């Protein structure tokens, strides 16, 4: 028992050393970062954060990211919920093949789609918009979310549907007032995965945005290399991009263990 908690503590320490390092770097002056090696800032400075909060570029890219991430979560769920219902409740011609084809998209490397996305979105005149990024991220999020939700829905006996219809429920009412509450944990988990992926994704977000919808993840990489690396600034931007993640994790922590098994344990 004792040995286990020691191992676990050691693991968590190792896990958080790099993050700790980033946090303290964000609080150091550039001089301290470059010229000395300190485990704790000699003089804590919030100068880096002040620069980010006052910079129009940083602020707008934070807002851009949040916008397309939320847009993607909504779009994905709207499409995935009915699709997962169809897969979990009905047999139809080609259902297995379709399901597998959807999943293969989850396997597709983003790099493969970089150029065609750019060209397609130029053609559709949505290049460099929030909608375009959200749409592109559906490529990965939709199959995964359908998969997760299908798992959760299959865990709910069909008899529940049948009983509801016998009781005279019409489909939309049944779906809204009985079925959706039952799979709420699944929806939460699905939303969590969409949020995560969309928030961290870099390749596509970079390829299909220029200025209008430029996400914070891209702004971050641009910061590298230009006028010598501003490590302190990068570190503080890094810290700020982690915060939404921590908030999300905190809110879904009770579903997390179950959700990561995708309801298939």
């Amino acid at each position, binding site marked *: 028992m004792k040995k286990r*908690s020691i191992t676990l503590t050691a693991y968590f320490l190792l896990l*958080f050393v790099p993050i700790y390092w980033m946090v303290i770097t964000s609080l150091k002056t550039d001089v301290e970062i470059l010229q000395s090696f300190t485990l704790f800032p000699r003089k804590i400075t919030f100068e880096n954060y002040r620069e980010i909060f006052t910079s129009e570029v940083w602020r707008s890219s934070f807002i851009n990211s949040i916008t397309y991430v939320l847009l993607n979560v909504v779009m994905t769920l709207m*499409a995935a919920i009915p699709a997962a219902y169809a897969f979990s409740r009905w047999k139809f011609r080609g259902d297995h093949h379709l399901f597998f084809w959807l999943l293969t998209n989850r396997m597709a*490397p983003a*790099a493969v789609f970089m*150029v065609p996305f750019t060209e*397609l979105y130029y053609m559709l005149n949505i290049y460099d918009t929030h909608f375009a990024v959200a749409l592109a991220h559906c490529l990965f999020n939709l199959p995964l979310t359908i998969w997760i939700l299908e798992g959760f829905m299959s865990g709910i006996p069909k008899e529940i549907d049948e009983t509801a219809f016998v009781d005279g429920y019409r489909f939309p009412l049944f779906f809204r007032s009985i079925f959706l509450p039952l799979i709420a944990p699944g929806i939460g988990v699905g939303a969590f995965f969409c949020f*995560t992926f969309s928030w961290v994704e870099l390749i596509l977000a970079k390829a299909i945005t220029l200025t209008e919808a430029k996400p914070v993840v891209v702004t971050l990489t641009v910061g590298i290399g230009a006028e010598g690396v501003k490590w302190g600034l*990068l570190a503080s931007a890094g810290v700020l991009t982690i915060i939404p993640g921590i908030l999300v994790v905190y809110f879904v*922590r009770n579903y997390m263990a179950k959700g990561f098994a995708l309801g298939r344990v």
Partner: protein
Amino acid sequence: MRQRPWLFLLPTLVLMSISAFIPLMAVINYSLHTIFAGSTPEFVGLQNYADVMGDAQFRGALLRQLTFSLLALLIEIPLGVGIALCMPRKGGAVGLSLVLLGIPLLIPYNVVGIVWRLFTQSDIGVIPRFLAVFGYDYNVSLDATDAFMTILLVDVWHWTPLVVLLAYAGLQAIPQTFYQAAEVDGASAWKTFRYVTLPKLRSVLTLGLLIRFMDSFKVYSEPLLLTGGGPGNATTFMSLFVARKAEAYELGYAGASSIIYLYVVIVMSYILFQFINRSPEERRA
């Protein structure tokens, strides 16, 4: 009535055709042409595929990629299960542990890049200074092994928590009775793990193995930000390779290598899935 499933699938099909089917067709189309900026594409059949297969750089990247994914799985799966076994089963520590595990998963790829650059950079990094104490001269931008191992380390750091979470969910679902029975039967700790825990974890581990395989096969941002694919080609993995070609506007070549790449991922995933979903007895038969 017959159309009802398709009605429910309609939004998915529309979204997926825009974000998956049409782009895929476009990639296939590129792969059959020679394309130069400004000129009309020329149809060349399977020539691009032949070029890709004959390209030592491509084969190098593929081999490197396979090695990388294999090593990542070999480390992350056992480590993840091991850590999951150390997790508390109830009480307040559970929530905290879960949140801590979730955090690395939600760090954007390029922030991971930043975190680790701060950590590994030869002038300001922690690792070079630490290893220097032992007389080891660590340098990601000069030493191929250092670079490869560093990317591997980052992947392990970033993604083992996912395996832990999966394994933990699996562990929680094993009824206590099974452990009681093993105890009554006089099984040792190892045998209990081997015959009770592991078999019960199979379905979640299958899932973890698949997800980790697919994702490690797509590794892109880490080498891009940490090593730029170097030194030499030591960390040029498949995604980076394809993206480089696309950025250089060698679209025909990039398209063909993309298709081969996609094909390898799908086939490997499928084989992996079949393999682990079959028990030893059945395989023998």
